[in-house]
């Protein structure tokens, strides 16, 4: 904006507080600029990735020329599609297991003494601080020690271990917010533990369960390191497939599948947000 222009507007309205007004405008401009930079920093790479999915060039080269050829190629690339399905399958089971475990754990944990509570909370969240590479290595060594081959169950266990803390954090945050007397009210009205759970507690924590499950899903879906260590021979997941395709010849089919996944997950989040409405907003707050 032209500085004389600003000056004019200031003089007409704010004769007395010219300098403060001016610094306020500068502040505003600066904060907008800062936000824009942060935004670009966060999302520009993703935007480029998505744009290149629709680019004719095989080497993500410019100039941009619109084409759907990579989506077509993708539809014939059974290896990549299988890997994606494997990832979704693994992440979905991980998500469900994590939600059930986290919910049961946090429900039980409320009844125990404060010492046990603290112990459980820290033990469950501890895997967050253990590097995945060490986790993967130790699970692999465990397999060796047991004399087993790499198998799906061990892969799943690994994924559950690393995803569980996220589900626990989200679900326990919600439970701590919950007024314990609401539950007590249910008991006093004649409902037993089971009825109280499915009529009172479950409806109140279900948004958190959904969010926690989704979080666990994403952590598992995204994980490369652990899968690389534990994947049974002959199978593959999407992150592993992307990694190897970088080594052996990268095509924008990867961009295409990434774009689809991004759009899908955004859609899912929007749907959850729409269904849960205010309760999810409360959760985020």
């Amino acid at each position: 904006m032209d500085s004389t222009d600003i000056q004019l507007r200031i003089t007409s309205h704010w004769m007395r507080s010219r300098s403060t007004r001016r610094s306020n405008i500068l502040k505003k401009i600066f904060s907008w600029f800062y936000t824009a930079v942060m935004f670009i920093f966060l999302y520009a790479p993703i935007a480029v990735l998505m744009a290149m999915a629709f680019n004719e060039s095989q080497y993500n080269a410019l100039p941009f020329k619109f084409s759907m050829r990579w989506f077509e190629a993708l539809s014939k690339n059974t290896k990549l599609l299988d890997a994606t399905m494997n990832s979704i399958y693994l992440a979905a089971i991980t998500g469900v297991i994590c939600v059930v475990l986290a919910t049961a754990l946090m429900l039980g944990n409320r009844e125990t003494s404060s010492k046990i509570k603290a112990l459980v909370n820290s033990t469950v969240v501890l895997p967050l601080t253990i590097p995945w590479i060490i986790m993967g290595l130790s699970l692999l060594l465990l397999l060796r020690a047991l004399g087993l081959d790499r198998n799906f169950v061990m892969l799943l266990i690994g994924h559950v271990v690393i995803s569980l803390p996220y589900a626990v954090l989200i679900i326990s945050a919600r439970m701590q917010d919950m007024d314990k007397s609401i539950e007590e009210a249910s008991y006093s009205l004649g409902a037993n533990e089971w009825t109280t759970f499915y009529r009172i507690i479950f409806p109140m924590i279900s948004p958190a369960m959904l969010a926690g499950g989704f979080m666990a899903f994403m952590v598992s879906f995204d994980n490369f390191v652990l899968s690389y260590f534990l994947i049974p021979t002959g199978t593959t997941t999407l992150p592993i497939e992307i990694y190897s395709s970088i080594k052996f010849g990268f095509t924008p089919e990867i961009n295409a599948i990434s774009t689809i996944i991004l759009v899908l997950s955004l859609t899912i989040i929007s749907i959850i947000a729409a269904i849960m409405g205010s309760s999810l907003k409360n959760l985020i707050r």
Partner: protein
Amino acid sequence: MAFLSIKNLTKKYDGITVLDNISLDIEKGSFLSLLGPSGCGKTTTLRLLAGFEKCDGGTIEVNGKIINDIPVYNRNFGMVFQSYALFPHMTVEQNIAYGLEQRKMSKKDIKEEVAKAIEMVKLTGFEKRKPKQMSGGQQQRVALARALVIKPDLLLLDESLSALDKKLRVEMQVELRQIQKKVGITTIFVTHDQEEALTLSDKIAVMKAGKIMQIGTPEEIYETPSSTFVASFLGQANFFRGSIEEKSGDIYTLKLSDNNTMKFRSHEDLKIGELRSLTIRPEKIEISSNEKELSIKGKVLFVTYVGDTSVYRIESMGQEVLVKRQNSGNDEKFNIGDTVYLSWKPENNLVLDWDGE
């Protein structure tokens, strides 16, 4: 026989005794308040009654049957919580119907009962609202209706009015008492608000540090408190603490700690040398510019005009004495610095044990 009978109830948390061997009897249909400062054990008593916690000793009997081991959901006690604890995901109707559904009532009967309960608490038209869309007073009514609709044997109220503003609280007090009388339900009310306890209760149990200090009707507790704690917790009181020095007939001389002495009349048989606390309520003291028999001399420190009454702070006997006086319009008025004489009828003073406070 009492409807509800608590015997030697004891509760400890991590080795700390919060309820110390309390016993209490409640008649059917009566309204009892547990009154005391925070940490006195009143809420713990209520939670033990409700069954949310297990006691470490003693028994709770209802109609002569010990209920210690009956789980909460089989006790049939209604409870109204301080936070109301309404189910946030249910409408008013659903909240109230919840307890009836647990009792396997038919849909038709539930509908009828819920409608009656809603009418009783004057919430007709609010059936489909969620708790969040209602004011505190309305939520309070829903909580009350939800607790009463199951026709409980006992109604437990945990500081249920304290979250409301003053005006609403007074309205709810009246309504609560009316509903309680109409339904005829035995009620236990936990509160730290002495005014609330006085207006609502048939009987008050004043608690302190896990013990019951005194049980009685509001009038008994106010007029004849058994200890200085009860006297000072319920209403205001002036205490003259000292030892009995002399006795002639029914007139005693009390020597206060700063060597002031005062004479008072009492029908009690007091021994020379006993440490006692002469206790007089502010509104029982007469204030006059003329000396009377057994009156004490003082100087007006401060006068507060409160509309119907005036409150005088008077320095007398080396301490500050509170006097409350009705403003009838043609009384003698006193100003700061005036010398006055304070007197009271002998039946209005209480000679309590000096419990070191």
